[in-house]
């Protein structure tokens, strides 16, 4: 313990009355039983009590002032009320008409929840609680996810919900329908319906963030000579120019033909990968031409270092 005068906020010349007053003031403020939530109140109060025990005894105080004793050892061990009360032993002193309303735990918490929704018209003392959220899963076609749609979801209880699918939604995202979950208790608001979206794959289109990718079959002539072709997009077919000499794997971009950004951002693009295909039926003349042409123009596309795999 440090200097008892200091702990009580007194000078060495303090009178007995000063000491008593200082102690009373501090005891009112720091008594642990009057401060159940303050962890440090107990240590503080013990110091205050010990200081008072020393200074309020004229003989001990005189000896301390002369330096014959120090401030330690004046503390008496003690169990405070708050320790027992907070350990749950004070039921006897709580649920008694004399001091506290004879309310039981349940009605206390009912009040607590009723207050939360104040103004909502809950029955007096009734248990009022918001309903829980309910999660549903919904599979939607690829194009509905890209362009947005309104879908009807039939719930297990027979109710039907119209769900507005925002354009650009992706698998794993959730649509929240406010107030369509479980009903509340005691007049509390309903919870929300959470609809987890799974987007079905598309035969042609693949999604890559906000871009769309497709493979576009072209004839050897279109690949070699270039030309205008019709390309499917999520908005319908559009014209696109294949540049001359477009090899297999060449990627062309259709700006702004991708997925709309959810919150007004820039729309993605569509990337078209050129895939030249051979003529659909075998043709002796074409085969003869190819054989002769390669005989006079020998080449090995696998000789370039990039295709060297093993």
């Amino acid at each position, binding site marked *: 313990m440090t200097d008892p005068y200091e702990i009580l906020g007194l000078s060495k010349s303090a009178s007995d009355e000063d000491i008593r007053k200082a102690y009373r003031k501090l005891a009112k403020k720091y008594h642990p039983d009057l401060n159940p939530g303050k962890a440090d109140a107990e240590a503080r109060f013990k110091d205050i009590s010990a200081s008072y025990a020393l200074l309020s005894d004229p003989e001990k105080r005189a000896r301390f002032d002369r330096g014959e004793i120090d401030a330690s050892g004046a503390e008496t061990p003690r169990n405070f*009320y708050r320790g027992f*009360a*907070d350990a749950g032993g*004070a039921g006897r002193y*709580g649920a*008694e008409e*004399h*001091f*506290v309303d004879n309310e039981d735990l349940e009605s206390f*918490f009912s009040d607590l929840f009723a207050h939360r929704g104040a103004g909502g018209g809950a029955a007096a003392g009734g248990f009022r609680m918001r309903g829980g959220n309910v999660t549903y899963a919904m599979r939607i076609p690829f194009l509905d996810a890209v362009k947005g749609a309104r879908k009807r979801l039939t719930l297990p209880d027979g109710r039907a919900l119209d769900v507005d699918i925002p354009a650009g939604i992706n698998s794993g995202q959730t649509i929240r329908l406010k107030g369509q979950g479980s009903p509340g208790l005691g007049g509390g608001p309903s919870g929300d319906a959470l609809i987890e979206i799974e987007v079905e794959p598309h035969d042609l289109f693949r999604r890559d963030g906000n871009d769309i990718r497709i493979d576009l079959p072209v004839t050897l002539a279109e690949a070699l000579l270039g030309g205008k072709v019709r390309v499917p997009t999520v908005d319908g077919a559009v014209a696109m120019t294949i540049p001359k000499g477009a090899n297999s794997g060449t990627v062309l971009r259709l700006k702004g033909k991708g997925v709309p950004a959810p919150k007004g951002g820039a729309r993605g693009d569509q990337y078209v990968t050129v895939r030249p295909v051979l003529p659909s039926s075998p043709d002796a003349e074409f085969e003869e031409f190819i054989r002769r042409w390669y005989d006079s123009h020998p080449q090995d596309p696998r000789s370039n270092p990039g295709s060297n795999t093993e």
Partner: protein
Amino acid sequence: MMALEQVLATVGRVNRHDLTLWIERRWVRPHHEAGGYVFTELDVARITLICDMRHDMAIDDEAMPVVLGLLDQVYGMRTRLRHLADAVAAQPEEVRLAVAAELKRQIRRDDEDRL
């Protein structure tokens, strides 16, 4: 468990007359058995607290029931809050996080109101 005599000796600052009066006023509520009153450690701590308030805080017999009533309400509230906290702690993480977020929101709102 202590008998009345032991309590008087342990606490030191209360006499038989006063303690009997406190029991009659129900400030202190020991069990009553065939051999007389039986005090638990909780009762002894409560008697000590009443002594502190009487002697060191100048709370007189008029004010004492008011203070004890408020004190019992504070401890009752603390018990209930602990039950509430335990009930929240027993919920799935999603619910606990939602409660924590809502609490944070409420506290922030209260702070803003104070400004």
